[in-house]
């Protein structure tokens, strides 16, 4: 398989077919997992090798579906670009959709750049029906599907891939991919935009793999879009429970959904709490505030003086504040360590309660500063050098 960027593919395709392919590689997001556009590989031509390029008119389209990647061949004819494309559905040789149920094939319009993309979406829909039909080979899995289908929260956002029977053991497996109806819109923007690439839509997908038809080996996995994963504290921050033995999806999926929702709520509340905390410190320390994180409210630096002794206090607020206690770093403005850094001491244990409001936390912090500074000053004089 030769991976190629969309630009390379567009450069090599026959000019008459370029608009059709452009909409696929640039805007082609199909299915639940629409974080990435559809991918094109293996560009080839139906013309002779002596035909001058660009004249490619057939390629492989990689389509994410239910945790798998479908590799379909799409065959045009550069000599007859007005003709509709033909398809080879990879390993799914038995998938034969009804042509009359593909409106964009019946009314193929080569002049409409969206026509190919729409046709692919219609084929995916037919493919989904085909996979659901295959579930009939297992009554247990069919029950799982039917029960989810009745729930409007999950029934319309589900992809199923029914695995092939093992010719030796006769086992039948399936994978359910569900889009969880969790609202991520209130997550602070700053948490979402700190990612390398444009992640697209914020989505949480739950994949549940049934390795056998009797549901004795079930493996769930939660997929979050990169921004959501970062906002919630990374991949290790959220652990979903194991699928209960003898359980079913209609009970398990809402449970995972609630867990994720609670986590999101906690993150949102944490943001507001941090903002309140910073606001309270600004109010209490006024001119002593050197700087603070005005976007995420995760940092605050104070310049304070006690008996002509000036010092800095760096406050670091964790993601799950107020559950997790802020870290205080005291720093002398006079003394250096042997490594040339300003002498500092970190304090993680001090009087604190997550139930205090921001005002109370600021007052208690102030009181703590007063009690700790003499000790810090002594340490600075003893261990630091001017």
């Amino acid at each position, binding site marked *: 398989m030769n991976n190629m960027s969309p630009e390379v593919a567009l450069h090599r395709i026959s000019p008459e077919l370029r608009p059709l392919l452009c909409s696929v590689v640039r805007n082609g997001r199909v299915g639940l997992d629409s974080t990435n556009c559809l991918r094109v590989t293996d560009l080839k031509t139906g*013309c002779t090798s002596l035909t001058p390029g660009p004249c490619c008119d057939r390629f492989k389209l990689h389509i994410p579906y239910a945790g798998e990647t479908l590799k379909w061949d799409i065959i045009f004819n550069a000599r*007859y670009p007005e003709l509709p494309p033909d398809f080879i559905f990879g390993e799914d040789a038995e998938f034969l959709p009804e042509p009359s149920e593909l409106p964009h094939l019946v009314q193929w319009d080569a002049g409409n750049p969206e026509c190919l993309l729409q046709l692919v979406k219609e084929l995916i829909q037919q493919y989904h029906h085909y996979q659901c039909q295959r579930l009939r080979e297992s009554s247990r899995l069919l029950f799982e599907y039917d029960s989810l289908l009745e729930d409007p929260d999950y029934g319309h956002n589900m992809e199923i891939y029914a695995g092939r029977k093992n010719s030796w053991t006769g086992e039948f497996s399936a994978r359910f991919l569900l889009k969880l109806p969790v609202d991520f819109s209130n997550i602070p923007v700053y948490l979402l935009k700190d990612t390398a690439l444009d992640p697209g839509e914020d989505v949480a997908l739950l994949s549940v793999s049934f390795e056998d038809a009797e549901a004795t080996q079930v493996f769930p996995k939660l997929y979050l879009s990169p921004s959501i994963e970062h906002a919630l504290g990374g991949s290790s921050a959220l652990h979903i429970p194991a699928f209960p033995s003898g359980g079913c999806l209609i009970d398990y999926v809402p449970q995972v959904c609630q867990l994720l929702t609670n986590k999101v709520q906690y993150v949102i509340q944490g943001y507001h709490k941090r903002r309140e905390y910073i606001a309270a410190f600004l109010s209490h320390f006024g001119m002593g505030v050197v700087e603070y994180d005005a976007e995420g409210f995760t940092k605050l630096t104070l310049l304070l003086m006690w008996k002509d002794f000036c010092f800095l206090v760096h406050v670091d607020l964790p993601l799950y504040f107020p559950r997790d206690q802020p870290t205080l770093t005291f720093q002398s403005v006079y003394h250096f360590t042997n490594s040339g850094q300003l002498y500092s001491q970190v304090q993680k244990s001090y009087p604190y309660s997550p139930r205090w409001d921001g005002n109370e936390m600021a007052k208690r912090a102030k009181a703590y500063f007063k009690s700790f500074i003499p000790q810090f000053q002594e340490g600075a004089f003893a261990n630091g050098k001017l």
Partner: protein
Amino acid sequence: MMAAPTVRVSGIVLSSLMFQHVNGDGDVEGLVLGESKFEEQVTISDSQADHIHIEETYNIQKHIACHKLNTFYNSVGDIDMEAVRKLLVNNEQERVIGWYRQRRNTDQVMSFREKVVHENLKTSLSNPHMIFVLLTPSKLTPPGSTHKMEYAAFISRSRHFINVPILVNNLGVLEQLAYWKVSASCSATGYNLTMKKHGSKFFSSNGLLREVNEVNDMNESLQAELQKACRDVEESERRLETLQSYVSALRIRLREKRRSLAGKELEKDLPEQKNNLLLQDAVRTLFARSPLFQTQILTLQAFPVPHVHCGSEQDDAVSVTPQDSQSPLNATRTNGWKRQKETSEGKDRKRRKNQL
């Protein structure tokens, strides 16, 4: 019953198909003409039950190329029969056994539209047995110095498409291990004319070789002669059986007659012994059981020893002397001899006793 389909094409037809399209600047397609045969083969074996299977053979004899793609079908695969008829010259619709497509740089599997068109073509031409020939030329080496042309045929069974091997006929067909049952078909006009002109020298009106008919006739004559000989043998056997039964009946009658004659002669030879008979009867009645006139074994004390029957006739013959036939005079002498013998023995015993 199993169906084992094969597709046969002569080297000339296949090479002309490839040659026509190999340099085409795009995909091409067309119709395939020929004939299809279905023969029932029965395999008889000692070790298992008779095995019956149907052999499907598709002979490709000609192809008709379409000038452009999608000539006889639309975007959803519906067949345009008018376009099909236009492609066929002289209304050869019954000779259409399938269609073909050359698809460059693609996999050797049927595509979505090809499957739909194939099913619709079967329905439109009312022929459930049709083939689809797929040719896929491609570059074998990156510089393009070597190309390959793969070809395969497909037939559909209940909407499942199976790959059927294409066998190319040649002068020396290596896979032919058994006798040819039918000749390879040929649609060339010149061939048919030649067969028509010279065929009557070798073939009779029923299509068989003349020699075959004559051998059959000879075989029938032999069979008739054999049957006649069998009938003759059967008749003679029956006559023999009858004679034998007559002979045995005659023998029985002869035996009986002789027996009866022999009895009468015996009666004639014997003198009249009325008086003797009466006397004989009387003596027998009075003295037959008398111990005086019977031969007996006596003890030393002159007492008769009782007879002990051992159960055999011989013993009876030994122990019981036939008294009836012995005369009383003979019995006395016998007793005397026995008495003397026993007396001497008795004396010996006495002597021995005295000695003790």
